[in-house]
């Protein structure tokens, strides 16, 4: 797989929604431990909004912009701005109707930059950044020109990053107030972002067309 189209990206979002929905109540439960118990609800709502907003556009830039603004119009919570900002960032890093491997890497890097406009959180802070940052680093560091391999590297790094949050003390979000007591549970956002990356990879992996 050498390029990715708007339709393929739409299909990736569908897979992400499917996988995240399976984990919806688990993600809310993670959030209940150190937050307000709604992350599963929020991330499902956001991916639904993303899919709806993605329908009109014919090129990637427009599609990502529509997704970003769509999420930020119709969904709520930290997830709204974080995921919304990610897609607005993606839009800034791409032109045209398809992306090749190089463009894909730039696009995800730009997505990360979009999130970073909204939060100072970095690796170690026990947030979704613990999944996103290593994922983007792994993707951009992959020599391969194969999109499936790049996404697989991202997914593996994201999952590892999410697992690492279990041992961390939260520095951002509602969990911050827990201090030491936040240690021992995986961050809900890191977990959901890892799942999204897994969906992206699975969709373009061996079992995909």
């Amino acid at each position, binding site marked *: 797989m050498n390029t990715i189209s708007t339709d393929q990206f739409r299909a990736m979002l569908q897979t992400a929604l499917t996988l995240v929905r399976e984990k919806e*109540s688990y993600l*809310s*439960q993670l959030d*209940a431990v*150190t*937050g*307000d*118990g*709604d992350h*599963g*609800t*929020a991330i499902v*709502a956001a991916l639904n909004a993303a899919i709806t907003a993605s329908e009109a556009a014919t090129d990637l830039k427009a599609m990502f912009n529509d997704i970003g*603004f769509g*999420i*930020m*119009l*119709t*969904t*709520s*919570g*930290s*997830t*709204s*701005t*974080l995921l*919304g*900002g990610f897609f607005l960032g993606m839009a800034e890093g791409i032109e045209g109707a398809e992306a090749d491997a190089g463009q894909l890497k730039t696009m995800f890097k730009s997505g990360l930059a979009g999130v970073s406009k*909204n*939060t100072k959180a970095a690796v170690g802070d026990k947030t979704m950044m613990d999944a996103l940052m290593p994922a983007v680093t792994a993707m951009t560091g992959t020599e391969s020109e194969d999109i499936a391999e790049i996404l697989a590297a991202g997914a593996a790094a994201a999952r590892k990053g999410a697992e690492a949050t279990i041992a961390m003390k939260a520095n*951002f*979000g*509602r*969990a*911050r*107030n*827990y*201090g030491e*007591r936040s240690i021992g549970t995986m961050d809900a956002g890191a977990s959901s972002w890892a799942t999204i990356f897994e969906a992206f990879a699975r969709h373009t992996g061996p079992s995909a067309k």
Partner: protein
Amino acid sequence: MITKFINATDQITRETLEGYTMAYADKVKLGGENIVVRATPKSMDKVAIVTLGGSGHEPALSGFVGEGMLDCSVVGDIFAAPGAQRLFQALQLFKRDAGILLVVLNHSGDVMSANMATQLAERAGIKVVKLLTHEDISAGLDVPDEDRRGLAGCIPLYKIIGAAAEQGKSIEEIAEIGERFIGQTATLAVAMRSCTHPQNGAVIAELPEGEIEIGMGQHGEGGGGRQMLTSADDVASQMITQLMSKLKPAKGDKVLLIINGVGATTHMEMSIVFRKAAMLLAEKGVVVADGKITELLTVQEQAGFQMILSILDEDHVELLKNAPSNAPYWVNIGK
């Protein structure tokens, strides 16, 4: 099986706002999806006061839209800040030369939405000044402001800056009045029985029977130490002592004391708590110039309350007590 008076769980916020604006139709209406505005708008030459926050905390925040208080509240889903684009829509409605003062409670979802929306607004030539509240002291008395959450202290703030805006003050003046009030306000919450999330039924912050947690936030997020409940007077003393340690009111200072019930705790209990806190303030020669025992900002059916203490400057007393307001949940006749 449902244990709340709701319909489809994804319609809660919409239906809540519809019911609320029907009940108080002469005061408030919907100005857009999840955007509550006054039935009769304030004149364009005055600063508009806008706020944002998740639903599920009723009457907050939309209950305070009305003459003399807010112009607009932008509502997110249960316990979730409205998206930045929704907030931007609302800011567009209130574009004016006098400017918009946007009150943001310090929770990362709200802050991120507000920042993003403000950037969008600036690009669209809309003048927005942000006012961030962070009066929770549960994280400690000396932690930086950004580590302190915004709790129900935003509501007397709405009253004060709303009254200042009504008087035609400039946005800089109003922001100064508000910042000064925030700097002199401290809140501490206590929880006893926990609540369930109305959409997914998750029990937020389970607390064993008879135990309390001083410092729990308004979404069940922990933050303090657990202990057995021994008496109302004991809890009131612990809390007012911490609030006084933070604010250090001097003898003769005028203060505002609010006991804000978060759900299942009764006005009876809150009155008993108010009594003890007021007595301890009186012992130090501090004057309770204004008080309230009520539900302003709730956390579903959770039992517990927030204790809000503010040292009031003379202009604050005037704006709080002597200026009229006609928001559904804070009516003041004024002088």
